[in-house]
């Protein structure tokens, strides 16, 4: 088991969770009722895919961020 502090970026609210091996980003977001959010270790790290196991990629006690989906772009350039 690993402890993880999920910081909701907009509010700074900290949600502490304990995850088992194989726990995915989707599992965490679903359990925390943050369905419209994405999980990452920060802006300099890529987002975890919903089906991606988070357990192996975080340290015990680490802080991760949940932020809402956003995309830079306009109709003609959105990739």
């Amino acid at each position: 088991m690993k402890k993880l502090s999920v910081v909701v970026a907009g509010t700074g609210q900290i949600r502490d969770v304990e995850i088992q091996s194989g726990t995915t980003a989707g599992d965490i977001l679903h359990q925390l009722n943050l369905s419209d959010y994405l999980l990452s270790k920060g802006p300099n790290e890529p987002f975890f895919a919903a089906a991606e196991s988070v357990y192996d990629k975080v340290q015990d006690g680490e802080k991760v961020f949940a932020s809402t989906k956003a995309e830079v772009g306009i109709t003609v350039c959105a990739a």
Partner: protein
Amino acid sequence: MRRLKDLGTRPAPNSVRELILRAVRGHAPTTQVERRPLAYWQERGWTLSGNRYTGSYQTPYGAFQGWIEEQRSGHAEFYLYNPSNEIRSHSHWTCFQQRGSDWYLVHMAKQPKDVSSGIMTIERLIREAYER
């Protein structure tokens, strides 16, 4: 025949006495330090005045000056000052609209639900621009 000579006593140095006293006293009770919930924009040093946030988008490649205007509806407009050549070479450069005095509006195809998520999105884009 005496095999040693008593030279008298002297006080132990303060550091040694403190060490012994600490061992006798034991540990002080643990103080739990409360975590302070901080929105990402606060954590990154942005300031809010009225509906306007001022600060910088922070990346491993530098801090980029910006400001954000949040409307009553919750819609936010993100501005970046004097984007570097790397940012101007990014595939999303056409999403930056010049608004005078080297300030650029960063147009969001999908609006973030909060200012913090928008800051993270732009920081991510800047990092991408430098890593391509």
